[in-house]
């Protein structure tokens, strides 16, 4: 599922809604823009008219005032009506985008950490629960109930094409609903300053057809690919005997730590380090060799590996599709 498009080509636009909630928000945005633009233009026109007419001198009759008073009253009334109307629209949109489905078909739990996203797909059947990192996949047309938690500081979950922003606050659970309506590849980002690398805390969102989504889910449930050749075998040994095992999980091995992202299906992801780099073996090599050079202040430390160790490790990780 790796897109070959460079990340900067992936649009992140709230005005290009691909989801139901984003559609409501965009619609409200355009309504407000339209109404307020119209009013703005009207005011400009009136102002222009006032400027033009005032050139004819200042000795106006008081009688004109009465007409103006009625006009002003109508103007004030109209303004009030428009404000109330827009408020009502805003309120209605709010209600519509925060409604929670009673029987959510899909539940996703996202825990934000500095500076990455831990994503858990929850299922009533516990053995069908799985975890991934820095990416979410959504089926078209299915409302996804997203539960938002934070491990450390306040972050904000924002996929502009699909929904508005929702904070992840430590110590509480927030929730939101996302209904994607169009297949495609989108990008999300942390929208609340959370520390040194707040700018490099992005999220890949992919919307698939229902069948493709189920296929993806099945592939994620499977444990990690076993090594197929010597290089991968050695690479797995490097993983298990050096610092990697202190922070990462690869299901199917003894590595099961949650400090860092779950790497079970790393090679199937579109980007690494929370959207900092597109996934490729070369980028992965650079990331492992010097993470603090690429994302200084992130929690991945510089680990000393020999060139041989790094190469075999890459062979192993690149096979984790």
């Amino acid at each position, binding site marked *: 599922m790796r897109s070959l498009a460079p990340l900067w080509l992936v649009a992140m636009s709230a005005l290009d809604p691909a989801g139901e909630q984003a559609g409501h928000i965009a619609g409200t945005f355009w309504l407000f823009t339209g109404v307020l633009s119209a009013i703005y233009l009207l005011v400009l026109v009136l102002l222009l008219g006032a400027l033009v007419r005032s050139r004819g001198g200042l000795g106006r009759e008081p009688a004109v005032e009465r007409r103006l008073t009625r006009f002003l009253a109508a103007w004030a009334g109209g303004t009030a009506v428009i404000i109330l109307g827009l408020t009502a629209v805003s309120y209605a949109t709010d209600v519509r985008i925060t409604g929670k489905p009673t029987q959510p078909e899909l539940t996703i739990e996202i825990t934000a950490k500095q500076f990455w996203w831990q994503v858990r797909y929850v299922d009533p059947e516990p*053995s069908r629960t*799985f975890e991934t990192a820095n990416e979410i996949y959504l089926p078209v047309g299915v409302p996804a109930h997203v539960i938002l*938690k934070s*491990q450390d500081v306040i972050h904000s979950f924002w996929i502009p094409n699909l929904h508005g922003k929702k904070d992840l606050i430590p110590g509480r659970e927030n929730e939101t609903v996302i209904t994607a309506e169009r297949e495609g590849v989108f990008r999300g980002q942390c929208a609340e300053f959370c520390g040194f690398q707040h700018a490099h805390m992005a999220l890949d969102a992919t919307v698939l057809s229902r069948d493709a989504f189920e296929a993806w889910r099945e592939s994620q449930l499977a444990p990690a690919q076993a090594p197929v050749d010597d290089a991968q075998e050695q690479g797995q040994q490097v993983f298990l005997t050096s610092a990697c095992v202190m922070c990462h999980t690869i299901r199917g091995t003894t590595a099961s730590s*949650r400090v860092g992202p779950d790497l079970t299906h790393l090679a199937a992801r579109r980007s690494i380090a929370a959207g900092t780099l597109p996934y490729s073996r070369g980028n992965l090599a650079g990331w492992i060799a010097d993470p603090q050079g690429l994302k200084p202040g992130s929690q991945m430390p510089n680990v000393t590996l020999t060139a041989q160790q790094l190469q075999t490790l890459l062979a192993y990780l690149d096979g984790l599709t």
Partner: protein
Amino acid sequence: MPPAAAAPADDGNWVMPAKNYASTRYSELDQIDTRTVGDLRVEFTFSTGVERGHEAAPLVVDGTMYIVTPYPNRLYALDLTQPGAPVKWKYEPKPAAAAQGVACCDFVNRGAAFSDGRLFFNTLDNFTVAVDAATGAELWKTRLGDINKGETMTMAPLVVKGKVLVGNSGGEFGVRGWLTALDAGTGKIAWRAFATGPDSDVLIGPEYQPFYAKEKGKDLGVTTWPPNQWEIGGGTSWGWISYDPELDLIYYGTANPGPWNPEQRPGDNKWTGGIFARNPDTGQARWFYQVVPHDLFDHDGINELILLDMPVDGHPRKVVVRPERNGYVYVIDRGTGEVLSADLFAYVNSSSGVDLKTGDLKYVEAKQPHMGQVVREICPTAPGAKDWNPSAFSPRTGLIYIPHMNVCMDWESIEANYIAGTPYVGANVRMYAGPGGNRGELSAWDPVKRAKAWSIKEDLPLWSGTLATAGDLVFYGTMDGWFKAVDARSGVELWRFKTGSGIIGQPVSYRGPDGRQYIAVLSGIGGWAGAIVAGDLDPRDPTAVKGFAAAVPDLKERTTKGGMLYVFALPRK
């Protein structure tokens, strides 16, 4: 009454910590009784040379006493026929010192088991050893686990039909629990039943007929866990095993699921926190009852199971009785696994009862742990209303003497990271006394009437076992070193003696070579409850010792480390 086959007549020996297969811990010797116990005095002592928690029961077989010490797990044989009981031989398994780093709750050992001229016991670094009882020569030594996975072994084995049954420890280290049967002659593994994983590993096959619907299903040891979590799921068997020779079933429990943080393991988490009945020859499961589905509070299900034949609602039933960690006394039909009753013996607010129709424990929503939030005043605490320390049953009074605690806790779940060989817990806990202020209690429970007959409140938690005798006495020890005898019928204290260190061991009674009745107990504070003294820890941090430090911050002033065997008897006439 205990079933006759499982509780044969007392021959004056004490061949296994539970006394017999029915686990009555009852001595038929009555030379020391309520009238004479006031004269009880120390006959001899023996220093084990180890200063950690002494949880073992001394064994006595035909004039020789056998003691297993905490790490380094020395086995001593004392010659009771000689004055002062000199050491006949000693066996030193020399376990790996690094095993001390993966033992959650002090380096204890709960004792050996004697059978057919051989002694069997476990070492901290996962060996089961067979030693010739007469000479101390090592017969075999089998390695069963790996400390690098966080495994240790602390339990006392049980020998059934030529098989030595042993279980591992390490639920706090993400260990996969098991019960293994070794051939008593050769030490080879006969069968191994895991506590999690597919049915083929858990030895669940055609013989398996659980009573409740919730225990039925295929590969529940996998499907009730998130993927691959069962591999580090806990369910160790570090406690007690009982055996019914008539039904030919062994009964034992599985401990807590790992990690303590329940949100990391949604699902029922089978087969942890429950009671298994198995065929001792093949290990195949007959029934299982999960006491704490999706355990929330580290309520291991490994306590003792006392076999009784008693009337339930007027009809005679064959049952096992278990004073459980979650505060209920369970009476379970030992043929089918049906829960006949579950009654509170301690203050509990984290659950509201057991539904006898479905077998479910009804958890209280307000007391469920949540990540990042502190839930306060959860009763009973993580070590439970009663931990491993075993109760005793007296057929003369019909009462079960339960040594337990009255401690509550605050709990905060945090994310647990599994790194093999390091703790896999995920909770900050802080404990303190429950309602009433007393941290311990000895309750005399009537299983037929399903109520307490009497109880004694203790200031410190009770972590020692109890002994009941035909002299209508109950013996137990406190954590500050008092060894006490109370009247079995009324609970009146009749005698006490201050030993050198806190008592967390199991008292036993035997007939010595000179025909007199003796009472023996090991004194040496430690275990989870006493680790603050045994490890010289700092009570300024209330979360020390997984929260227990806050429950006994005064323990360092009340007792000191030690390791001594005390043997008492009445003065010679």
